[in-house]
């Protein structure tokens, strides 16, 4: 071994500086491609931030001013003062929170039932639901809500948002319960626990990571939804995305407040994405789930 090892070391030692440069260039090229691939995302979000922190003169300047100097929070103040953003924010929280909570209560047991009975045809149903355009739910639901005098109420919006949240939670939970080992549940049943007790005290605590992913994804896709609110909500019951589009684009055409409002809508979602990006990656890779 010694005999073969020594010449190998010598051979490598000679062109080492050239190899080093090649290695270094390769690494540079790789980081360059990383920069290229993430730059569109970075640019659009930074531009959004830049627009929201500049006064109107800088926002309309050409060539554009990139760095706000000095940054101003006037746009954010204006959005909060002149519009009932607080109220729309609350509407969004009630609608997305309510729809996610109901989906959680009925979707987690359903996911468990599907996983334990192997009723996978039900998940196919959910996939077909995903294929249906959101607008096609809206026409019949709109007609029914009209009959029930529920149009323009938050209740109608919560019910409609179940179209988004229930499939996501059922799909993710069915997949998650499938990965849990059954031995613990079997042991509990031998000890005389019923199905419900086994679910409540054995399976449910183990499923917490899956529940977290399901809840966050369901909440985000419900939060982001625009078209349900655009059709079903009235002046007082608009959700945040609808309010940002309807109120701001008609009442003020200035770019600064618009960008500030866009940031207010999407910042909570972006923060959640960054915080739990690992879990989101896992949840989305398996399901390919997307709402609406």
């Amino acid at each position, binding site marked *: 071994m010694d005999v073969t090892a020594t010449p190998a070391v010598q051979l490598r030692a000679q062109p080492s500086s050239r190899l080093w440069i090649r290695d270094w260039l390769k690494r540079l090229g790789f980081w360059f491609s990383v920069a290229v691939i993430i730059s569109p*995302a970075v640019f659009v979000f930074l531009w959004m931030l830049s627009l929201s922190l500049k006064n109107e003169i800088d926002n309309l300047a*050409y060539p554009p001013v990139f760095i706000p100097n000095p940054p101003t929070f006037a746009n954010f103040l204006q959005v909060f003062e002149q519009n009932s953003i607080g109220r729309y924010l609350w509407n969004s929280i009630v609608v997305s929170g309510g729809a996610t909570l109901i989906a959680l209560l009925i979707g987690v*047991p359903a996911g468990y039932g599907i996983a334990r009975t192997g009723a996978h045809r039900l998940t196919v149903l959910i996939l077909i639901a995903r294929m249906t*355009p959101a607008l*096609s739910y809206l026409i019949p639901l709109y007609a029914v809500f009209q009959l029930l005098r529920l149009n323009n109420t938050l209740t109608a919006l919560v019910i409609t948002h179940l179209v988004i949240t229930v499939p996501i939670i059922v799909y993710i939970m069915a997949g998650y319960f499938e990965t849990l080992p059954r031995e613990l549940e*079997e042991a509990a049943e031998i000890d005389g626990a019923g199905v419900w007790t086994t679910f409540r005290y054995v399976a449910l605590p183990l499923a917490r990571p899956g529940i977290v992913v399901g809840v966050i994804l369901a909440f985000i896709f419900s939060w982001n939804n*625009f078209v349900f609110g655009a059709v079903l909500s009235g002046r007082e019951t608009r959700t945040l995305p609808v309010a940002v*589009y309807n109120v701001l684009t008609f009442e003020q055409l200035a770019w600064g407040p618009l960008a500030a409002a866009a940031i207010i*809508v999407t910042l909570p979602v972006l923060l959640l994405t960054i915080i739990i990006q690992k879990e989101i990656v896992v949840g989305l890779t398996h399901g390919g789930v997307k709402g609406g």
Partner: protein
Amino acid sequence: MSCNAASWSRPGVVALRRRRYFYFILPALLVVFAVIIFPWFFTVWMSAFDWKIGSTPQFIGWDNYKGLLTNQRFLESVARTFYFTALAVIVPLIIGTIAALIFHRQFPFRGILRGVFIMPMMATPVAVALVWTMMFHPQQGVLNYLLSLVGIPKSLWVYSPQLVIPSLVLVEVWHWTPLVMLIVLGGLASLPTEPYESAKLDGASEWQLFRYITLPLVAPFLLVAAVIRTIDALKTFDTIYVITSGGPGTASETINLYLYLQAFAFYNIGNASAVVVIFFIIVLALALVLLHVREKTKWT
């Protein structure tokens, strides 16, 4: 009663288990029926009526469908939707695969950078659309400034009937390439390592490794991504509605935009329902074609 592993799969036990877990599934099933399945059937039913909000519905059979098939504006919107979808599937597939190959490697800050890369797909579509509207502005928009830096003349973007669809595809690509990346990344993570080791011993180049090993192995995942992307591209509504509302003229009026106008601007519910049914058949047909291709490629 013995509860060993084998008892989980005995036929009698399966039936028993089905019944025991029925109540777990029941509430979700009821909700799915109420808000998902009922609307499907109600839509088909409504499509056979001349139904306008505020007036009594009249049964007219196939007339809504016949009207649509000779309706120039609707047929154009179908063609436009296909054009938009083709671009909005192919481009993200290519860029998403490249991005997945990059993020498949190990490098410092990989997690954070991947998080930044997937931010567009989680961002609220309305917010994204508003920012792109401002970026597309022909006079003060930042995109034209960026073009001028590399010597390309100013473009009208979404204000030009010819460029409006490609411009909207640009937003769509920005928005949804991360989802393709995630699906392909999942595929890459599941690949075996042996073929690579033996190919490297045989002196294969990086391109050859990609072309003859990686690509065939991730092909099923690319097809899944293509199916999902096709469905989503056909369904695109928020960004188009906010950025152009179908304009200029009807130059960006896709099926979904046409549908929205029929239903909630003209309150022509019967006609809109017929559009939904045709639209759903198109989505289903395209998805089935792509899944069929997948079945075929598995065996060859």
